[in-house]
């Protein structure tokens, strides 16, 4: 009994160390934006089916984590749902799709449109009831994103706000968590990726995208440039990509994945 146990133990160590050695084989790790991750997961599945033996691991985090992990060498490719900043010029980005950011509320909320000023008013805590913007008498629950998410950065940029001005009742992490919170609270307001929101709306989640300054947030309008509040979805690498990473990026930019991008309600570049 004991001897078997010890042998098992040794075997496991050997296995573990052996796999350390061979790990660099056909393996690719991507980390970053939770907006891009579901898309890349599907792209990766197709890529794997065409390249047997290759294994692609996708980790969600945030755009900054994508940047961070690529810099630290933890990931081969980073997923970043915005354009690179000036301080990030050591990396190179490859555009794979476009996406908009839309304001969402609970499905039963009668409000259909908000102006930029109203949104600023709500997020800075000056407007506290839906009545003030033409809705029913319901306190507003402001949902904000936690630090490090590119959606937050773009939101602040777009409305010229600083995070310290925002007066939130709930702070969430991923897109999905935002949608889940909005669907659970009748008076909630949040902002998420349009692609993700449309996907959820079509799957029966009780949320709805509302228009901003009269612009209707749909992926179609993003594609046609009729919705201003949009962003790039990028794959990011440290140097010029080589080998498997290069192949994968080329694949993700090719027409072969166009149907996947559309199925996820994103816009092909």
């Amino acid at each position, binding site marked *: 009994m004991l001897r078997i146990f010890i042998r098992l133990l040794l075997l496991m160590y050997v296995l573990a160390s052996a796999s350390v050695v061979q790990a660099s084989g056909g393996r690719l790790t991507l980390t970053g934006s939770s907006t891009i991750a579901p898309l890349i997961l599907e792209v990766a599945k197709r890529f794997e089916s065409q390249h047997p033996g290759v294994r692609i691991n996708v980790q969600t*985090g*945030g*755009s*900054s*984590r994508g*940047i*961070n992990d690529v810099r630290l060498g933890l990931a081969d490719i980073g997923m970043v749902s915005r354009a690179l900043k000036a301080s990030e010029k050591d990396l190179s980005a490859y555009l794979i799709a476009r996406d908009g950011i839309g304001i969402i509320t609970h499905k039963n909320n009668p409000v259909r449109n908000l102006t930029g000023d109203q949104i600023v008013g709500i997020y800075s805590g000056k407007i506290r009831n839906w009545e003030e913007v033409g809705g029913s008498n319901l*306190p507003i*629950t402001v949902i*904000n994103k*936690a*630090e*490090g*998410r590119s959606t937050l*950065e773009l939101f602040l940029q777009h409305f010229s706000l*600083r*995070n*310290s001005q925002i007066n*939130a*009742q*709930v*702070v*969430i*992490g991923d897109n999905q968590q935002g949608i889940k*919170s909005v669907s*659970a*609270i*009748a*008076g*909630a307001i949040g902002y998420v990726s349009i692609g993700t929101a449309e996907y959820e709306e079509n799957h029966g989640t009780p949320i709805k995208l509302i228009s901003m300054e009269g612009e209707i947030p749909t992926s179609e309008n993003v594609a046609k440039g009729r919705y201003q509040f949009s962003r790039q979805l990028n794959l990011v690498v440290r140097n010029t990509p080589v080998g498997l990473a290069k192949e994968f990026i080329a694949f993700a930019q090719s027409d072969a994945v166009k149907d996947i991008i559309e199925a996820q309600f994103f816009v092909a570049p």
Partner: protein
Amino acid sequence: MSWIAKGIVNRTDHRLSMMLAVLSAGAALLLTLIVLFLIKESWPFLSSRWHSGSWFDWLQYQGWYPQENRFGMAPMLLASLAVTLGALIVALPVGLASAIYLQFYANPKVARTFRLLLTLLAGVPSVVFGLWGLTRIVPLIALWQPPGASLLAAILVLSLMVLPTIALTSAAALASVSGELLHGGIALGMRRKTQILHIMLPAARSNIFGGVLLATARALGETMAVLMVAGNVVQFPAGLFDPVRVLTANIALEMSYAMGDHRASLFASGLLLTAMVWLLSWGSYRVTRNGREAGQYG
């Protein structure tokens, strides 16, 4: 009691002793390693604070806005303390009462079932409590005061989590003093309530205190369950229904998104947590020692 080192003659013994000593040294070095790594990772943050002369700003309220280079941890520190304290205030009386019931009122069969249930509950993962709190407690509170995710929800879920620990350790503490003392009390014609409250509890207090400290450490270090129900807004809680963010939840929420000074500041908060635990265990050492001495004379 043990065998003295000079008694090692056999070569196998000698080798074993050496090997184990190295292992133990490694284990002791672990703490050093952990602390070293925490310091190393948080160094950019600590040193830049030092140079800019704003070293103690993290204690003063200036908000937690890493993007704007403002790292005020005070609200989260306070939230951590409030949640821990609140959970103890709720769980301690109820847990003690359960222990008293278990030890002095329940018949053996009921007591066994109760104990089994408590042991089972003590083993339930915190994420399950979080899930339960998120789907049951939060909506309940939201009916009353939206959004529901709040200091109160965190306190309720945490107190439920530490209840089994407090009840089980207190029951054990009471059991270890009960025999003779109870007979003595009966001989004096004391009422049961008086015996329990004025003889048993004081006699067992040092061990009960140990259990409470264990629960405190658990509550302070709990991450996931609190993250799931507390709402995670960085602010000084003004009331029970305000959402708060505790130190541990902050690390879990932002760690995978953080870079540079932001990341370093999270490691610094890890350092702060370790220091708090260290203080707690040092305090408990002092208190139990004093308790033991007082017990001898009092």
